[in-house]
């Protein structure tokens, strides 16, 4: 059953994506709109004081994303260590 569903869904999705990519999206190198990025490029040095505009976006303009991302790394590490823990002290109890 999975194979049949797959054989129907897959070509549709690939055609969908490739046509969308090739014909509809803006040509590579000529973005449709860029007013948010232009504002950031002009004001990054003065507002955040860092020469590297990408770092100013990562840590200041969209710093909340990076806080979320640092949390994701923290979650993954905690999750991995949780799953690889010992079972010896089974009856520890709090």
């Amino acid at each position, binding site marked *: 059953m999975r194979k049949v569903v797959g054989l129907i869904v897959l070509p549709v999705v690939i055609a*969908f994506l490739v046509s*969308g990519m090739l014909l*509809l*999206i*803006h040509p590579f190198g000529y*973005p*449709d*709109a*860029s*007013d*948010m*990025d232009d*504002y*950031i490029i002009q*004001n990054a040095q003065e507002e955040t004081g860092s020469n590297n505009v990408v770092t100013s976006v990562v840590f*200041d*303009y*969209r*710093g*909340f*994303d990076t*806080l*979320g*991302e640092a*949390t*994701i790394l*923290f*979650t*993954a590490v*905690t*999750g*991995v*260590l*949780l*799953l690889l*823990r*010992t*079972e010896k*002290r*089974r*009856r*520890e*109890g*709090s």
Partner: protein
Amino acid sequence: MAALITHSPILIIAIPLLAAFLTLPIGRAGGKARNVLVIASLAFVEFLVIILARDIYLNGIHIYTLGATSPELTLPGGAMVPIRIILEVDAMSIFMGIIWATVSLAAAIYSLSHMARETGQNRFYTLLLLMVAGCFGMIFTGDLFNLFVFLEIASISGAALIAFRTRFADAVEGGFKYIVISAVAGLIFLFGVGLLYAQYNSLNIGFLANAMQYSTLDIIALTLFLMSLTIKTGMVPLHMWYPDSYTVAPANITAMLVITSHACMYAVFRICFSLYGITLDATTVGWIIVIIGLLTMFVGVTMAVFQTDVMRFMSYHAISQMGYMWMGVGVGLAVLGNPEALATYGRDAISGGIFHILNHAMYKPLLFMTAGALFHRTGTRDLNKMGGLGHNMKFTLILYIIGTLSIAGIPPLNGFASKFLIYESVYQFNPVLAVVAMLVSIITLASFTKAFQSAFTGPQLPEYKDVKEVPKPMLIGMGILAAGIIFTSIFPGLIVERIVNPATDALINQAAYVNGIMGGGMP
């Protein structure tokens, strides 16, 4: 106090994060101190959610721009597009916030004793707090990429918690399925976000809604959004992973995971109503959602009837109850176009769907917790092996009855109120839908009485003679949700009028959402 209110959206997300980072060092000091930290932080978050809700019901949408010189400054001088990440909390978001705060507090109290004998508790509570923060982030954010980041936080912590009992093979299986599905759903969602960013060069929902021209790329992006988020809520064509994962997780984690799928459903509503609004041809999208809701309802309940594992039985019921919400709000979306139909039954349909989210978010976690209580005492989830537990576990019996009556939609309890609201409005839209919905509700009642009979009634089995009632924290956790159900059952009118209707209006009123962002510019 006023400062607390202005900063409350970010505090609600940041305090569980702070508590999660602190849990590990404090947990080394001692289990007691860690438990106090977890419960105290969740109680403070509940308090913050309540004062924020009061503030929103008084003076409308609450905006918080992160990193700007002042929280309300959405458009910095000289720019017509929001640059920073903006948390936008309107009546619908705070409605989900109230549900999530209450259920996570109840689940945390429940897990104090349910997890007492497990190893690795420090990291368990860290992940629990991170899941709380992840879901709050998903609910409050007004930024599409931020929604993806917090969707991932909730997914990763949920998957690790599902696979918590690594000594059972199926627990790790369930966790693996959940993380694979969430990763694929997240990446497909991100592809859609990329498509929108390519055209309008912004990630803010308010700005995108304002600049949306509904080009063919936007339709592709909409399908990617709907495909990815509905997978996470267990819609019918791709629902097989849902019972496998939710059965094996500890009971309180399943209770919270049900609400994370509600948050994904909220994200679908936010995208359909606030991001696309009237630009999308609402009837076709509405009809798609209604039909899929109908299918989910029917398949969920038919699969549930012959389940023997109590948690798997309830997971299938969770899928079928989601069908009600999809149908209710789908009908509202379908008539979003013509205001006259919207006024007569469309708005009631959406209110019914949203009210059903509130009710489902109370009785489903309660039922999962009662199943967890049975597992806690008998060590098995198989209904055939249980029997006559009603004799010793009195309180769990009462709580189970409250949950069952509510899910089956028996008049006095709140399940009936929201289902009736859905029947009434959906009937005017298309009578067949209402008939099927009622049929499904009857099958739900039948299957739950069967489960009730096999678990609680009957002669007292010899091996369960000395079974004691579950410890106090578990009863308190379940008690909070039971109290919520009883309160909603006694005053349904009050709840609908004060909480559900503002949420419905906030969802329908896209202009207010856009104005919150675009109108809030200060030099």
